[in-house]
């Protein structure tokens, strides 16, 4: 019974790690620069 519990926990942890890794991979690259209210005199971002 204890072995079965350990096995289930191992599978669940593995699935969780896989999901986190997959979501990370699915996210687009983060934005560079900081957004501020428009004043009309922003620096170039490129």
């Amino acid at each position: 019974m204890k072995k079965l519990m350990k096995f289930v926990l191992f599978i669940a942890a593995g699935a969780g790690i896989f999901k986190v890794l997959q979501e990370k991979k699915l996210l687009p690259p983060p934005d560079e620069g900081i957004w501020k209210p428009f004043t009309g005199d922003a620096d170039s971002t490129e």
Partner: protein
Amino acid sequence: MRLGLITSSPLHLRMRRVLAAHPSVISVVQTVDPAGFDLVISDQLVDEVASVEIPDRPLRWLATTLSSLVASPEVFAYTPSGPPLRTGIPAHFPSPLHSLWAEENAGMLAAPTNGVLAGVSVQGLTTVGVVEDRNFLTAISAVGPALAYLGNSDPIAAMRQAGLAVAEKIGRQQEG
């Protein structure tokens, strides 16, 4: 001014609210008959009276219009309603949308999102963007040409006066 609104848009109430807040507006009535109004805001131009057309796709119209604030605009992005993409071209918007995957759509980047927020951004040598409640952003963009007409100003200035908050992306501070 007494305004008549002729539209099949489900956002007509939001559009009326935005228009009614303009200082030169006495009343806004949703109607099917353009007669008797000082200005008619309509899905299609009306011949008999002064009229302003509602953009067919308000968020795309806003992206084009926002480009007036950008030096050498190149990348236009907006967020149609829909399930987010899992890959594609990265599109960047102000917080809290940040970065989303987008696909090319008629010369613009379309980055679908399911939430209540919608965004538009234009990138060139400088970058500007907006993120607002989707209904508000769509409604204020839909009446953007009318606000410009009422204020005798450019559409972005008129929409900012009506409550549209525009953000600009600030690059790194130059050293020295």
